[in-house]
Structure formats: structure tokens, C-alpha cells
């Protein structure tokens, strides 16, 4: 976490710098099926974050030595657009984005039924178009929707959400200033139905009790975000599903 500055992150009424309560999320908007070429896609606006996710596959894994004879591999590329941040980000992968890509891939592999597609690759591309703290969680949330949108068999959707500590208060979903000047950040990937935690990182300084409180806050919030993910997919496909049913009945 960043240096402690002379900046008041929690005011005397217990409200945060952007006016939120400690357990309050930033506004989140999710849309499914937003790109034409990709097999599946999703767009997430989360506070001031703007993130696109696209999925291609299952397709032939390249290079071939990456292929696994008994299952698909899930390859994730998390990338920040040069203009997504205050100081221009140099294009191309840096150590941070390689790490985020790896843990996101591991979180998604947990739900994707990779055993159905031996030797293939399911490729997930997360593009951060505008960044404002919490992009890995928003990216994971978007990627889950994009996978479902691509029709990829998967056990469930994964939700990404972070919590942390600022001015000695445990808070949900850190904003930019809180991320920069707060005391701890705990990004999580969570499946609300099964209670499985599939991504977890932490940096900063928290007591064990604070950590557990933060995680509980995230798990609670994840249920709401999970609802938004499913709503986005329903909105996109409900009408189509109605016609498809006609056809399925017709053909049988």
C-alpha cells in the first residue's frame, strides 16, 4: 500500500472520501455480448473503471506444446490500454499484468469444464480501457460473463471484489485514493453459491479480525455482483431463448 499522506480517507461521520459508507460498493454496470468478432464478450463499468473482456475458443491451442492431452487450457491476457491511467502506460505486458493474468486464469480454470475440450485453448482477453483501482476484480467479473456469453461450459460464474482497510476502518471496494493511501487491500475471486474462494491476494497491514471482516464484506457484496452478472446475460439472451425453444420443440 502507498504512503500515509495528510489525506483524510474517512470523515467524522464515518463516510469515505467519495461519500460511500464502509460496506458500500461503487456503482456497477455489466453488459454481455458487446463485441462482434469474439465468441463471447462483456463490458463492465465499475465506478470509474471501464473494462472489456473477450473470449475466443475453445480453439486449437498455440503453440502446440501448450496443449494438454486431457483438457483445455485457459489462457488469460490482462492488459491496460496506454490511456487508461494518469501517466501513460507503456504498451505491452509488464510484471504486474503477467501476474494478474496468471491468477485470473487459475481462478477461471476452477469453474471452466476444461475436461470437455482436450488439446484446446480457451483464451480470455481483459482490456482495461480506464483504470481507477480494482481493475483485476472488475476484470475477473467481466471475464466470467464473457465466458458464459461464449457458451463455454462452466460450473458457475466467478465474482471479483476487493475490500481493505483505510484510516483503521475496514471498507469494501477501495477507490483510487483509498488504494493509494490506505492501509490494506484484499482482492478476492469468489463463487457465492459454493462459497469457494478462487482468487485471493493481500497487501498491507491488518489484524486477523480485520482481515476476516474484510473478507466477509467481500463475500456479501459478491452475492449482489453475481446477481448483476446473471442479469446482464439474461437481458441479452432472454428473448433469444424464447425463440430457440420454439425451434428446439419444432425440430424434435
Amino acid at each position, binding site marked *: 500500500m502507498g504512503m500515509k499522506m495528510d489525506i483524510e480517507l474517512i470523515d467524522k461521520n464515518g463516510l469515505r472520501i467519495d461519500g460511500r459508507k464502509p460496506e458500500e460498493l461503487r456503482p456497477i454496470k455489466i453488459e454481455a455480448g458487446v463485441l462482434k468478432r*469474439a465468441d463471447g464478450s462483456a463490458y463492465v463499468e465499475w465506478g470509474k473503471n471501464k473494462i472489456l473482456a473477450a473470449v475466443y475458443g475453445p480453439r486449437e491451442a498455440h503453440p502446440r506444446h501448450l496443449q494438454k492431452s486431457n483438457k483445455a487450457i485457459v489462457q488469460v491476457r490482462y492488459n491496460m490500454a496506454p490511456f487508461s491511467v494518469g501517466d501513460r502506460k507503456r504498451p505491452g505486458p509488464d510484471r504486474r499484468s503477467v501476474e494478474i493474468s496468471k491468477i485470473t486464469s487459475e481462478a477461471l480454470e476452477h469453474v471452466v469444464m476444461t475436461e470437455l475440450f482436450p488439446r484446446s485453448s480457451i483464451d480470455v482477453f481483459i482490456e482495461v480501457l480506464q483504470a481507477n483501482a480494482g481493475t483485476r476484480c472488475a476484470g475477473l467479473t467481466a471475464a466470467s460473463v464473457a465466458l458464459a456469453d461464449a457458451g463455454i461450459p462452466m460450473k458457475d460464474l466467478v465474482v471479483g471484489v476487493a475490500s481493505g482497510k483505510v484510516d483503521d476502518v475496514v471498507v469494501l471496494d477501495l477507490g483510487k485514493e483509498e488504494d493509494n493511501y490506505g492501509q490494506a487491500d484484499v482482492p478476492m475471486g469468489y463463487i457465492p453459491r459454493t462459497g469457494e474462494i478462487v482468487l485471493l491476494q493481500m497487501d498491507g497491514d491488518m489484524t486477523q479480525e480485520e482481515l476476516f471482516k474484510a473478507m466477509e464484506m467481500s463475500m456479501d457484496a459478491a452475492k449482489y455482483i453475481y446477481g448483476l452478472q446473471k442479469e446482464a446475460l439474461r437481458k441479452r439472451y432472454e428473448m433469444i431463448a424464447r425463440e430457440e425453444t420454439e425451434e428446439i420443440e419444432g425440430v424434435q
Partner: protein
Amino acid sequence: MSGNKVVSEILRDYIYNSLEEGKRIDGRGYDEYRKVSIETNVIQSAEGSARVHIGNTDVLAGIKMTIGSPFPDTPNVGVMTTNAELIPMASPTFESGPPDAESIELSRVVDRGLREGHAVDMEKLCIKEGELVWIMFIDVHILDYDGNLFDAAALAAMAALASATVPASQFADQYPDYDLGEDFPMPINNYPIMSTFVKIKDVILVDPALDEETVADARLSVSTDPEGRVRAMQKGLNGGFSYAEIQDIVRKATEKGNELRDILMKSL
């Protein structure tokens, strides 16, 4: 563009056969663009931004600015860098990794059109001659690829520039010895617009869609300004053009440039 999947002979012949009867496969006229739309100021972290759709082709351009030293041979002008990325999100044929020749050509052609067209008054981006100038990065992100990236990228870059604000006040603390002044709009000097044509057999088409691009023999992109002056060109692919064809394309590019410029001006 980048290593497409194998094109079926049938599709190739179908495009040829349709053109023989004077028809494009999507029903457009030879001189007709797909639907073009421009949306500016879509990214708040950028100093200027624009999203451009040409048909299903979808690109996002963002401008970032910082302050630094001028090049020694041009001490009184700002610095402009253009970078276009064919990110793998946009097409099953784009791959991750360092920019390939396609990306680099695209970046350079977009750059040339803006630079030679004097889109930005670069002298107004000089803070103190020989010491300090504005450094501008134009980054173009390709989100969905359905042909004609040159025009989409050039148009997005131009629209992003025209909507940009130079963030002078942000840098005041960092450079107390200089007078940076208040934030000011990007000093736009001119609106060069690029228009791209391909040749398939002996037919010349504007704004190639992906399928047309994959069977095209030759390509020519022409950047023109509002007065119809030619500011940059790039010929691509391994086919050739006759002199008469080039003349024809250059004239049409001016006309098409005007059409696109109208759409651009309405979006600002």
C-alpha cells in the same frame, strides 16, 4: 491484415463473380462507406479520446500528454508519438506479443497522415524553446476487426486529438520555473482524413470489409485535407495500380475525406 485463416476458394470466387456483375457482397456501392459513427470523450483518464465504428470495425483512440525535452533538431515544437495495437481481443487472427509489422505499419501510416497534414499546431506545444515541450502520445486500440483499420484508426486518432485538452494546470507544481498557463484545447490546425481503397481484379472499392480485404490485390490509403491537398499515402499488398487508377483513387479520396470530415465535425 494479419495472418487470416485460409480463405476458401469459393468465397474468393464469389467476391469476384459478384464484382463482375457490378456488385459488392454486402450490397454497397463501390464508392460507399459502411456506416461510420464517432463518439468523443469516452475515456476520462485520457486527455482526449474517441471511439470509431466503421461497420463492425471498432477502434478506440486515446491521447496522453506529458512534458519533456524537445528533439535537438526541432527545439521549438512539441513531440508526437503514435502507436496502434492490434490486440488479440479484436480478431481470432491477432496474436499477443510485441507489435508485428502490421501494427507498426498501421501506427506509422496514421502518424504520417496527422503529422504531414499538420493536424496539430506543434509550435503551440512548445513551452520554452530548446528546453521544454509537450509530449503527446496517440494510442489506438483495435477492439473489433472487420476490415479497413487504416481509416478507422486515423479517424479515431483525429477525433481524439480534436476533443483533447492539454492538461497544463496538472503540471504546474512539477515545473514551477515555467509558465504553463491554464488548461487549453488541443491546438488543432487542420483536419486531414484518410480514405482507403482496394483493388480486386480490376475493380476499385472504398472501405474494404474484412472479406474484401482478404482477397484484395492492392490497397491504397490517401490522406487529404479540407482543401483537397494530399498529405500522406501508403500503398499496400503485392498487387499493382496503374497511374490512371491512382489518379482516380486520389480524386475519390478527397471526396470521401470530405464526407468523413463532416461526420467528424458533427461529433465534436
